């Protein structure tokens, strides 16, 4: 087989496996990039070469490796350009004083510990062709790395971008990133010359080139930015000249004697942060680089990672020491500095875990070290394990020290603070997942009708979750995520201003967040906010077998809250309500919601329809509901009627009655959620045939008091 055919086969395998494993790790709530790194390791001698050495040798013969290496280097150059491009000065605005101190201490402590660890490791895992100084400098640099790109995405994913902790962590990581790259450049220069003195010319030239780029290069790039503003689009010619600039800059730093990646990073960093240009340039560049070239880098790196080298307990102990120094140095340094700067214990701890993320940046550094021969294959493997462990542990430890409900508390809206004045248990909360604010006005309007108009008695939270399907893209950077959130906030505000009555608008407080799994996040927020009701819109699936599988089905299955599903037929009014009554707890919830709507709307009438047939008596109202009825004010009771229809077909009777009402409310059938039915056979059929808008209710909690906040003397407890 020719080399090109083999390389293409390798690329197929690499991209396929890295996507697959990456998505597997996504489902574990881990960054996609960890999965891609693991996929690369799986393809190397650690797994593939161990399990099927013959097949591995056939698929990855030595003569094809240089091609993979070149592809991975090209990928790395453009990835570093993207990292530089993402490094927005906006991230350097959050508590700069605290950030500079914290980030420097968080570099100095692991760097010093790394240098001390070199005393132990140098005689064991290095050789005399590497000077101790270069070894210690490199090990110290490797220990001090924080992966800004990975950290930024973890922050976005946890919706921390607007919080004090998030902005502080981003600023720290940005400062850390720049400092660590400078440190690495010095380490490479010293490694290549094997002495501090001999490395001085390289370092001076590097400083001169940085100065040149920050002044002359930046002013030239500003002209490009102006040209973009004039034309309004990134033409291929402009893109070509930027890419040429990236490659030229990479070549210059290589000639100077540091490394290709610095030139690319530097050009990205000095690019004017023109929002439109940066976004378009990133979007055009990242897809190919992140999906095609970067996995090849991971595979190349994986081919050089040999976990099998750690074949004695003593070596695993050394690996443990490396982990201990890396984690301890970063965490303790950050934590102590944060506390000195006045951060709370919890914030300082969370910041420590965030700064511990090393991810892909560490992998880049390690590959350079291995190529230069300054770190041996054994130490390379230990440090790869360290990079994976430190990145993998970030999300769970962050959740442990700074859980999502605490994040919500820190992000509490001013409007909600007023609620604190009264007993929170008295506030009736409705959570309304809104996917598209422009088409779901009816849903929010219904929520407002259920909530009532009395401020401080009820709150409606339209919840807009922005799904970022891929977590390593430019859109998942905090600044970009903030832009998308602001856009959605504005759309929701427009929706709120269209609600009637105007007095009810003050009850509505939107929540806009980044979320990967809409159903799970909705259930989580409902639980954190202690929502009494989740009101969700529903459209019949396009390819219907009416299966439990859409978002509604997922929310019904996961939410530990009462749920109401609204099928909007775009009725303008909400004055005639119909409850086709079958005695069960879900229908009782429907009746309670109907009463809530009636309390705030004196023109609203309710019909509780019961059906009798020759062989069946009509359903009796439950004892609990009858006792509530007795406590209702007379004017409310007078607006409720209880007709009984003779019919052998309950469904047909309900459909017929729905023709003359604005909203039909039906409880889910007992068999909801089984046999591929979302809400049960009867309610599923009603969703299709009902002539009015339809609200289907599903009770989860038997103790949620839906009437307490509007009927204070009601002792209703189903």
């Amino acid at each position: 087989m020719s080399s090109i055919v083999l390389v293409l086969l390798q690329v197929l395998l690499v991209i396929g496996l890295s996507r697959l494993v990456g998505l597997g790790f996504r489902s574990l709530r881990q960054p996609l990039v960890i999965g891609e790194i693991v996929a690369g390791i799986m393809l190397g001698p650690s797994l593939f070469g161990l399990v099927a050495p013959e097949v591995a040798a056939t698929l990855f013969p030595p003569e094809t490796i240089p091609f993979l290496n070149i592809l991975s280097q090209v990928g790395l150059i453009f990835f570093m350009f993207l990292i530089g491009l993402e490094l927005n000065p906006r991230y350097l605005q959050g508590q700069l004083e605290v950030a500079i101190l914290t980030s420097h201490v968080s570099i100095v402590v692991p760097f010093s510990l790394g240098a001390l660890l070199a005393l132990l490791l140098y005689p064991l895992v290095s050789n005399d062709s590497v000077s101790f100084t270069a070894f210690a400098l490199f090990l110290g640099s490797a220990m001090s790395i924080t992966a800004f790109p990975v950290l930024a995405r973890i922050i976005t994913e946890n919706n921390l971008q607007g919080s004090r902790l998030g902005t502080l962590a981003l600023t720290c990581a940005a400062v850390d990133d720049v400092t660590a790259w400078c440190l690495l450049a010095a380490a490479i220069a010293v490694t290549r010359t094997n002495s501090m003195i001999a490395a001085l010319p390289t370092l001076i030239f590097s400083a001169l080139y940085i100065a040149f780029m920050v002044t002359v290069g930046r002013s030239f790039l500003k002209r490009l930015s102006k040209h973009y503003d004039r034309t309004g689009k990134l033409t291929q010619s402009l893109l070509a000249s930027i890419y040429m600039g990236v490659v030229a800059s990479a070549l210059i730093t290589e000639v100077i004697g540091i490394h290709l990646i610095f030139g690319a990073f530097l050009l990205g960093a000095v690019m004017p942060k023109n929002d439109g240009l940066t976004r378009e340039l990133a979007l055009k560049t990242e897809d190919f680089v992140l999906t095609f070239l970067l996995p090849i880098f991971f595979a190349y790196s994986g081919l050089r990672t040999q976990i099998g080298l750690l074949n004695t307990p003593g070596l695993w102990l050394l690996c443990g020491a490396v982990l201990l120094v890396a984690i301890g140095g970063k965490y303790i340094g950050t934590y102590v500095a944060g506390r000195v700067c006045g951060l709370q214990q919890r914030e300082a701890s969370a910041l420590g875990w965030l700064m511990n993320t090393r991810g892909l940046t560490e992998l880049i550094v390690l590959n350079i070290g291995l190529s230069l021969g300054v770190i041996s294959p054994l130490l390379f493997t230990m440090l790869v394990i360290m990079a994976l462990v430190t990145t993998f542990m970030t999300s769970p430890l962050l959740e442990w020290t700074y859980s999502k409900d605490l994040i919500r508390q820190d992000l509490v809206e001013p409007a909600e603070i007023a609620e604190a004045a009264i007993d929170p248990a008295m506030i009736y909360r409705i959570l309304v997942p809104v996917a598209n604010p422009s088409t779901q006005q009816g849903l929010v309007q219904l929520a407002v009708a259920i909530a009532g108009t009395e401020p401080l008695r009820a709150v409606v939270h339209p919840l807009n979750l922005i799904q970022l399907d891929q977590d390593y893209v430019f859109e998942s950077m905090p600044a970009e995520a903030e832009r998308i959130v602001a856009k959605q906030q504005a759309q929701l505000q427009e929706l709120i201003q269209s609600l009637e009555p105007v007095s009810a608008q003050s009850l509505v407080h939107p929540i806009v967040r980044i979320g990967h799994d809409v159903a799970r996040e909705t259930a989580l927020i409902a639980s954190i906010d202690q929502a009494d009701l989740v009101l969700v819109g529903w459209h019949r699936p396009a390819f219907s077998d009416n299966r439990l599988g859409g978002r509604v089905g997922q929310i019904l299955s996961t939410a530990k809250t009462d749920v109401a599903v609204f099928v909007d037929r775009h009725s303008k009014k909400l004055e005639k309500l119909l409850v086709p009554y079958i005695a069960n707890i879900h229908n009782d919830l429907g009746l309670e919601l109907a009463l809530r709507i009636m309390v705030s709307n004196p023109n609203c009438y309710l019909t509780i329809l019961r059906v009798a047939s020759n062989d069946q008596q009509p359903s009796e109202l439950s004892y609990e509901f009858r006792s509530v009825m007795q406590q209702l004010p007379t004017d409310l009771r007078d607006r409720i009627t209880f007709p009984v229809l003779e019919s052998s077909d309950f469904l047909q009777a309900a459909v017929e009655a729905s023709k003359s009402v604005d909203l039909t409310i039906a409880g889910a059938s007992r068999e909801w959620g089984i046999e591929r039915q979302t809400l049960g056979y009867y309610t599923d059929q009603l969703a299709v045939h009902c002539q009015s808008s339809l609200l289907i209710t599903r009770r989860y909690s038997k103790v949620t008091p839906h009437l307490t906040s509007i009927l204070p003397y009601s002792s209703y407890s189903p």
Partner: protein
Amino acid sequence: MSSHFQPKSLLFYGVMIGSVTILFRLTSAYGERHLKAPPNVNGHYLINEPLVGCPEGDYPKGETASHRLVLVIQQSGVYLNGTLTLVEAESDTSQENASLGKQPSLTGRWQEGQITLSGTADLAECQLGAQDSTNSAIPLTVAGSLIGEPVTELTGQLTLGSTELTFTAEREVIETTLEGH
């Protein structure tokens, strides 16, 4: 908090950076003076002696054999890993990539100029006698002394199954792919 350009802050940064610089200088001075890492023994060792039972080809005296044994040593300080392979005499064995992606089958250590390696060898092409019925994982031990500074030669003895061989091998330094890449 106050601006970080205040004398107090500047003093703190000065002390911090000064301390870490001094610590690093002291550490590196101690390391350079007192710590000795083993010599660089990475490389391909081309064994001069033929191994009985392995293909040699008929070649007139004075010409090179068609195949030769190569001991690949991958070093991580005192920890060694390696592979013993039979390669065509004309093939280029100096590439780093030749061993990339493969799991070394030998492990061992460097100690005071001596190396020891043990594990298995995959020599399917060799006929090593009835006692070594399968040639895909023959037990192998290598013990030898390194000669020269930098190391240029390895002399020693290898025991492959029931076959013993006293050998000398020339070292071929592995070239990195792209000078530091």
